[in-house]
């Protein structure tokens, strides 16, 4: 159960090796937190992340469990299993792939990316939501991206999948609100992380820790959407309305 200060006792990270996801987990650590579950495909990497968490938070139980975002049909069982060991207070959906810039010609590769980033995220959110609805409480944190706010020609598969998951998560949040389930959509800008290593940072680039701090503040305030950094909300409300010929020629594209 969350306590009155908004501190959870149990946090599940789907995409258990995600830099942003792990930063959010760390930001949720408090004297109230009792257990963290890192659910990931690469359980060896998950164990390394778990060892770091255990070292910093010896009072918290940290478990690693296998979970493949690309196999939506396994998600409900995985989440039900997690729910069987106690209430899930916060479930962070943080698995996604960036793909290759300019990768718009390989149809099969694009479909694989869309499966993880959209179909896999949808099924994970619903699977988690079903557990939280039975509990009558809990929050799903969905990592969207500003890339979905106006999709760039450089990586339309990634941007398109984020646009899709962002819209889905908002609608789903409305659908389950009456069951006590809260959905928070996080829209980070360019984040320096393992996923973006070697890429040219976009303006207003941020770090996983700063995204995590904004996310936790939004959770405590009960908000449904958070931009990180906050200024991107205004930047993108302008970019979104640019005429296509202008947008196409912008250097960020």
């Amino acid at each position, binding site marked *: 159960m969350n306590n*009155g200060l908004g501190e959870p006792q149990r946090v599940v990270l789907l995409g258990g090796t995600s830099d942003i996801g792990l930063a959010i987990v760390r930001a949720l650590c408090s004297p109230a937190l*009792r257990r963290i579950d890192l659910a990931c495909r690469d359980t060896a990497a998950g164990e390394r992340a778990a060892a770091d968490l255990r070292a910093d938070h010896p009072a918290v139980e940290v478990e690693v469990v296998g979970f493949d975002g690309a196999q939506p049909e396994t998600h409900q069982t995985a989440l039900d299993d997690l729910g069987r060991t106690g209430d899930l207070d916060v479930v962070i959906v943080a698995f996604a792939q960036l793909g290759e810039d300019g990768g718009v010609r390989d149809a099969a590769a694009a479909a694989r990316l869309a499966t993880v980033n959209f179909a896999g995220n949808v099924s994970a959110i619903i699977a988690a939501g079903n557990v939280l609805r039975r509990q009558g*409480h809990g929050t799903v944190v969905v990592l969207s991206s500003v890339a979905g706010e106006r999709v760039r020609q450089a990586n339309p598969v990634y941007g398109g999948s984020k646009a899709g998951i962002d819209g889905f998560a908002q609608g789903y949040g409305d659908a389950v609100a009456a*069951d*006590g389930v809260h959905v928070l959509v996080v829209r980070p800008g360019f984040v320096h992380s393992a996923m973006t290593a070697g890429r040219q940072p976009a303006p207003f680039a941020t770090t996983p820790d700063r995204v995590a701090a904004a996310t936790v503040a939004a959770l405590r305030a*009960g908000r449904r959407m958070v931009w990180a950094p906050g200024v991107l909300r205004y930047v993108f409300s302008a970019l979104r309305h640019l005429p296509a010929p202008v947008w196409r020629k912008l250097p960020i594209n």
Partner: protein
Amino acid sequence: MTREALAGWGSTSPTVADVRWTTAQRLPAQLGEVGERGALLRGLGRSYGDAAQNAGGTVFRLDDSVHGVVLDPQAATVTVGGGVSIDELLRVIVPAGFFVPVTPGTRFVTIGGAIASDIHGKNHHRDGSFGSFVESIELVLADGRVTKVSPACDPELFWATLGGIGLTGAILSATIRLIPIGTSRLLVDTLRCANLDELMSQMLANDHRRRYSVAWLDPLATGAALGRSVLTIADHAEPGDLGAAAGADPLSYRAAQRATLPALVPPAGLINRMTVGLFNELWYRRAPRRREGELQTIPSFFHPLDAVGRWNRVYGRRGMIQFQFVVPEDRPDVIHTVVSALAEHGTPSFLAVLKRMGPSGPAPLSFPAPGWTLALDVPAGGRSLAPLLHGFDDLILDAGGRHYFAKDAHTVPAAIRRGYPRLGEWQAVQRRADPHGLWQSDMSRRLGLTHAEGDHR
């Protein structure tokens, strides 16, 4: 049955449950229909944290009527349904010359809730908690059996139910010893104290003189004014104390709600350092330096906040945390540290309440313990509030103190195990009464209170 979001009076952590209004007659049979998330009875929802909610499970509410109240004037007892409020009860018993033996700062609590939290009042230093006045409790057990427990008949279950936060069974009704009163007024002495030291020495010197004693202090005052406060001590007035006008009807009782705070308060609430500072200042200045023998009514002395309905809305959407703890009498330094840390931190906290408590009762999870108890409200959204409160927890537990379940919204399982060393004893009785873990609450999950945690799944 409706699916409803329920929260405590602090409105901090709402969760959704199936809410069923029921009666004492129908409830036993309905327990068989409860799902794996268990069931709980909820009274008027005045506990501040998550004690009276059960996420994903069933929450029963007793549709009790004050017409079922049986007053025995010879024995000075009353038998009353668990869902009846002290507000309703007072309207019956005060005109008949009786008063509840213990009342909290609001009359909008049910008898079931009063038992489940083993509540205390301004007379704790002298009379003890509610449990000292309960003769028997009629309980529905998890298997649907209805049983009556008392200090003579199954004393273990009786005392586990007092302060047992509703986790031993559903409290259908209880027989309570009342105190006789000659009038519905109180004779109140008021004393303004410039700081915490003066207040504590005045309490030590004056508490024994009167049945009721409580102090309200300004948690924002710093420096030499740290803990500036107003101490009130009182007794029930006798007919001879009343003037001619009131003397004509010495037991008249009128308790009205003058206004209800609308839901239109801005989301951030109206509580900030300026509004609260101004309020606390006015309130302190308004009190007389010293006044003796002032006549006050029951509502104005015991239940002043009840004059405004839903006053908790003043804290806005994020709600408030009420923090109440007790430390032994020889540890006033903890009260000092908490009050000064809070004042320095600048959290806009309304009047805090300080009271000296008398001896503990026999109930293993009963809160009161001899010493100083401090209760204060803080807005839940406050910056860096969490580390501050967790820091207080360590201080309180190290001093041999503990937290009050009816108020708690933030503490952790380990803190309860330190503050309530008899938890294991209570769990053994709880498990005997509820072997399959039917009774569940958000608080029992958060604090790991019931032994059967996880069993029912």
